[in-house]
């Protein structure tokens, strides 16, 4: 059999051009398959990394996915606001370690504005329990100061000390801008790969301040100037949601129950992990579709190999006749073709994995710098080995087609050379 392998190798090197093209076809399909698989798992991981260390998220009564979407992903709107007194009560609960109030509703050029307090800087965590860090500046301290996410700074080209105008509501139109009260950018967060990058952060007091005179939802009559507001002490009356970190995880469920049955106001408390899981489950169709597409690309690649092997068979009838005359049995011919198909697939897979890692090595630093997405050069996972194994097996099975044809051809032709 080693003689046959040697022959297969020599024969392939003789058809170098086609062999290389076939290997490339398989390699590219493997890159796609593995790339999609990597992106899928990384996306899932970074999705799960959006929030970390938070035990409960509390908002007005609604479904857990909705609450998660507006409080963490800043997508959509709160069904209702909640009273500041509720926040005060639960943030001082004996099992609560820290609490972050959040007030959403305004926007700046398509980016959401989040009103919060100093606790956001010290307690909010994402990824693997990472705290927020600054590429420039500092947290907000005064009333009209803002801290922006990395994407906001990049897309709008903002730097420290830039003046920005916040709009009322989600659409940023001339008539609904709080244009008499500009904010000054005092800090820019480092990229996190989470919705924080796309958020403008201001203090809760500032949210109250810019809405003086806007109580009905639009500007009514005179609104005060910044100078007048500097000396006013603002206390938030309402917020949209808040995050809680507990002293001990064991208390999570009992506190959740207490919040859900809170009789002064209808509230919902959710566990971020469980809500994330449910949300991801809703997206699994897209995930499966992506995988199916890359599966089809692999099939296309292998069919390319099949067509090149079948085409070569016609030219190789003489080769087969000579081998038969030398005493090669039809099973040798069969094995010759199978080993060619397997060899081509194996080479394609190896090259594909090589290309994938090369691409990852090139892209990883760029993705980390600009998008805060960490693409890790991890070893091939068990699942990926399984996928690669499947590709190899498919390659061998596809090899049966030309092999069987050559087998029958060599039986029929015998030693007659047909050209």
């Amino acid at each position, binding site marked *: 059999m080693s*003689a046959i392998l040697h022959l297969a190798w020599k024969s392939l090197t003789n058809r170098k051009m086609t062999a290389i093209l076939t290997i490339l076809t398989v390699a590219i399909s493997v890159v796609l398959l593995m790339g999609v698989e990597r992106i899928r798992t990384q996306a899932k991981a970074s999705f799960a990394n959006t929030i970390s260390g938070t035990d409960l998220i509390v908002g007005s009564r609604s479904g857990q996915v909705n609450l998660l979407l507006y409080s963490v992903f800043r997508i959509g709107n709160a069904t209702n606001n909640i009273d500041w007194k509720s926040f005060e009560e639960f943030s001082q609960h004996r099992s609560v370690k820290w609490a972050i109030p959040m007030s959403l509703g305004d926007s700046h050029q398509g980016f959401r504005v989040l009103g919060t307090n100093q606790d956001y800087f010290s307690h909010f965590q994402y990824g693997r329990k990472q705290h927020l860090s600054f590429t420039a500046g500092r947290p907000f301290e005064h009333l009209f100061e803002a801290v922006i996410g990395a994407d906001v700074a990049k897309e709008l080209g903002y730097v420290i000390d830039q003046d920005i105008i916040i709009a009322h509501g989600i659409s940023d139109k001339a008539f609904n801008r709080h244009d008499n009260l500009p904010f000054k950018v005092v800090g820019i967060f480092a990229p996190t790969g989470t919705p924080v990058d796309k958020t403008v952060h201001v203090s809760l007091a500032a949210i109250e301040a810019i809405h003086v005179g806007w109580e009905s939802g639009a500007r009514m009559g005179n609104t005060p100037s910044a100078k007048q507001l500097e000396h006013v002490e603002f206390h938030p009356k309402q917020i949209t949601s808040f995050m809680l970190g507990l002293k001990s995880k064991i208390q999570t469920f009992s506190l959740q129950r207490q919040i859900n049955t809170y009789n002064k106001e209808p509230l919902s408390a959710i566990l971020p992990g469980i809500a994330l899981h449910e949300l991801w489950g809703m997206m699994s169709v897209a995930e499966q579709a992506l995988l199916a597409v890359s599966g089809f690309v692999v099939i296309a690649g292998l069919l390319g190999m099949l067509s090149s092997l079948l085409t070569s068979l016609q030219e190789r009838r003489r080769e087969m006749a000579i081998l*038969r005359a030398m005493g090669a*049995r039809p099973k040798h011919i069969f094995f010759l073709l199978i080993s060619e198909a397997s060899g081509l697939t194996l080479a394609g897979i190896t090259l594909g994995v090589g290309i994938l890692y090369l691409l990852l090595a090139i892209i990883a630093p760029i993705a980390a710098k600009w998008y805060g997405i960490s693409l890790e050069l991890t070893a091939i996972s068990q699942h990926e080995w399984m996928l690669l194994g499947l590709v190899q097996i498919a390659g061998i099975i596809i090899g049966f087609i030309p092999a069987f044809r050559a087998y029958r051809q060599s039986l029929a032709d015998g030693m007659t050379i047909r050209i």
Partner: protein
Amino acid sequence: MSVVDTPSSPIITLSDLDYRWGADLPSTLTFDQLTVAAQERLFIKGPSGCGKSTLLGLLTGIISPQRGKVEILGHDLAAMKQSERDRFRADHIGYIFQQFNLLPYLSVIDNVLLPCHFSATRKQKVAGDLQQQAKHLLERLHLPSSLLHSPVTDLSIGQQQRVAAARALIGHPELLIADEPTSALDHDNRAAFIELLMEEAQQANTTLVFVSHDPTLEPFFDRSIDLTCLNKALETNQ
């Protein structure tokens, strides 16, 4: 009938033979008897369409007759299974095609050594180093040593046929079958090639069966058979 009984023991005995490509097709080859003695040099003459390919297929065990016996070296090929016939061919028969004998992707030496990969018997019969023996054979067949490492496609047809002869002879097979090996050669080369082939066959104690439609080659051989006379199927078909 041109069957002549030879005094020495026969290496090939075909008797009462009938072959047809399909059960309901007419016979392509039918004859009573053909024997070839050991170390005989037999010329089989026949134009195309006289059952030459069928006879070669039967002798090499590629095909098996519907009726009759194909006895080579005391083994009845007709009674063997396909894989046994393949193994038998690998072990005992050297074969030279009309032309394009060589695998283009193998070196000259590797082409010569090809039968040794399919037959342990022939590999064992090679005395000493395989490469050396191949070089030695090629040298005896007057292939310039400068060509040993050039691609086989660079060789002239005459040179290619000599490499094919070396390949057919390596490992001393008992029987050497040549299917019009000189048809692509010019007159001078033809004679030179046949003489070399004869010499080497004799040296190796190999029986030579040489098939051609060219009657001018007849004088080189011990005995000549006209397949058109031998094959009774041709008469019945006409």
